[in-house]
């Protein structure tokens, strides 16, 4: 013990760091800031630490080559002792990190912590959020599987919509004419050097400002932030305050440990993410899906009207980022407490509900045809009983012409178009014929691909699709 102390003293005499560290650790903070609500930022930092460690450990095995990345992940998953666990930790920690950064941001927003003099801390925080999302996306690319391949294709297609320089940007994004070795190499550099380097620098800045400007006090309704008086008031609060270590930090430590434990449990129980199928574009039986935090975007891309898509895709991100950056500039003073800021609370709620429901929608993907329904989901027997020969032939046409890929019958099939269990209640036979032959309302026209006999049979069958005892649709122009 004595030896250790002596060593410490020897080191500190030369490093001269002890004094500064002690001061930073024990700096007084407002009593109310030693709160369980103020632990998310430090937890995100802890998870970032996990990412650095597990990331380096994975990098000593992973091969960033388009030809071999996928097999090196297989080796990690199956051949290396606990390689799967490290991959799982890295993947789950990534999800936790995005979640924690978002929660931290919402908390800071609702507590008005971005107001004077902490505007720049918020702005740096916005960049930290973008970098965290950047890490999540580039990380998905490094898991070089089918999803990564087609995900890159989507990224390139969005980039290609930029007017004039779109083509050049696509080549810069991919590092060449196609998604291939050059693409993976540059995403590796982004994920492993460029973004983490920036992230470390920005985290340092963020923390420095938290230290210099002090942790935000617990907001009180009616306690207004004014540029002229705030610093004095805050000093008063810290004067009556408590030292950061140990009064506040124990909560950070406990919460951080709980998060690390949760990541470990998720990793052990659920295992690593993918890789899914090989990144071979000739295997076209793919249904690419993005990772969880980009699912909302997937929904948005499916639901936007075609003409609106390019403007929304290209304008939405910069506008959203600009709004976030401007938040502290526009409301740097005033009320901090959420009870007095209904617009702020409402904004958070609306954004959360919107993103939440988009994400939820993406888990059912009602807009995607079910590619195998025509062969895999036969017409239910109950829908064939008591039908005439012609009608049954229609059911066959219905199945063979892939109608099932978009239309449900008896709870099976795609949801791109309406379910047809009761279609005879909605459309008369004339309307059915027209709809089938000419399409419309998002349905392709089948005129060229159905013989008159097939059309007759198909429509005869569709006319039987209604609950027993209810009258079929009636053409109002006919007596």
């Amino acid at each position, binding site marked *: 013990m004595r030896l250790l102390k002596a060593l410490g003293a020897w080191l500190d005499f030369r490093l001269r760091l002890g004094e500064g560290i002690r001061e930073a650790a024990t700096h007084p903070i407002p009593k109310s800031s030693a709160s369980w609500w103020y632990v998310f930022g430090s937890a995100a930092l802890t998870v970032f630490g996990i990412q650095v460690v597990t990331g380096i450990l994975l990098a000593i095995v992973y091969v960033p080559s388009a030809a071999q990345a996928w097999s090196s992940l297989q080796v990690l998953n199956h051949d290396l002792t606990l390689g799967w666990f490290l991959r799982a930790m890295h993947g789950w920690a990534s999800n936790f990190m995005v979640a924690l950064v978002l929660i931290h941001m919402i908390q800071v927003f609702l507590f008005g912590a971005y107001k004077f003099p902490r505007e720049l801390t918020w702005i740096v925080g916005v960049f930290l959020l973008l970098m965290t999302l950047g890490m999540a996306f580039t990380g998905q690319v490094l898991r070089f599987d089918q999803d990564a391949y087609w995900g890159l294709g989507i990224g390139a297609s969005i980039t*290609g919509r930029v007017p004039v320089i779109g083509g050049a940007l696509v080549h810069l994004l991919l590092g060449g*004419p196609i998604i291939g070795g050059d693409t993976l190499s540059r995403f590796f550099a982004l994920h492993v050097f460029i973004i983490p380097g920036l992230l470390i620098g920005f985290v340092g800045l963020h923390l420095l400002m938290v230290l210099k400007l002090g942790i935000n006090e617990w907001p009180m309704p009616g306690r207004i932030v004014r540029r002229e008086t705030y610093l004095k008031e805050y000093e008063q609060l810290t004067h009556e305050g408590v030292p950061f270590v140990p009064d506040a930090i124990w909560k950070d430590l406990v919460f951080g440990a709980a998060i690390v434990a949760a990541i470990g449990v998720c990793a052990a129980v659920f295992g690593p993410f993918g890789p899914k199928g090989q990144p071979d574009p000739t295997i076209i039986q793919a249904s690419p899906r993005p990772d969880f935090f980009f699912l909302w975007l997937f929904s948005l891309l*499916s639901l936007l009207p075609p003409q609106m898509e390019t403007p929304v895709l290209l304008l939405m991100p910069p506008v959203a980022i600009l709004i976030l950056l401007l938040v502290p500039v526009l409301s740097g003073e005033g009320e901090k407490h959420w009870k007095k800021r209904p617009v702020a609370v409402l904004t958070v709620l609306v954004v959360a509900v919107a993103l939440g429901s988009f994400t939820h929608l993406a888990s059912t993907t009602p*807009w995607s045809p079910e590619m195998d329904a025509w062969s895999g989901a036969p017409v239910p027997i109950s829908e064939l009983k008591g039908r005439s020969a012609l009608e049954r032939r229609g059911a066959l046409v219905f199945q063979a012409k892939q109608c099932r890929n978009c239309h449900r019958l008896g709870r099976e099939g795609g949801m791109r178009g309406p379910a047809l269990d009761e279609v005879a209640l909605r459309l008369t036979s004339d309307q059915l014929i027209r709809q089938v032959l000419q399409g419309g309302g998002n349905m392709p026209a089948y005129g060229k691909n159905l013989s008159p006999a097939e059309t007759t049979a198909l429509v005869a069958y569709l006319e039987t699709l209604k609950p027993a005892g209810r009258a079929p649709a009636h053409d109002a122009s006919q007596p």
Partner: protein
Amino acid sequence: MSETLKPTRRTMLTRLGILLNAGIGAVLAVPVVSYLLAPLRGKNGAPYNQWVKLGPLEQFPEGETRLATFRNPVVRPWDGQTADIPCWVRRIDAEKFQVFAINCAHLGCPVRWFAASGLFMCPCHGGVYYADGSRASGPPERGLFEYEHKVEDGELVILAGQLPTLAAQDRTGRRKTCDC
């Protein structure tokens, strides 16, 4: 204190030093930037788009649409499977062909051909195209991308080499041949 801020010989020399570094930095930025922009210029002087063989005509029966694959003309040794590019070949009659990109004109997902209904369907956001590649429904704004093609020595040859996106294709035409 204010005395030391007066321009002396040493402050002048310091400024000169800074200028020197800035100048050298600017000169060195030229190779760095052109290195970063290299992907814009094709590889080893070869253009990205070249004529590639898809195979003998017998592989493509008349009146049918078949999947064909080709090795991208410009590759890296470590591209692996990613340089094997699929496309859809539609043989209309003895002479007439259409060669469609696999990538949906919406956001590039792989479209699949359904012969019975004569439709291409996209698994991502539900884009659908007719047999001739024109848009049928869903989010795509236009029809499928097409490769320029010709028949040479009994083989089908297409002009290919780039990931088809709206930027690499003619944005105006509904279905324009690839002029990338």
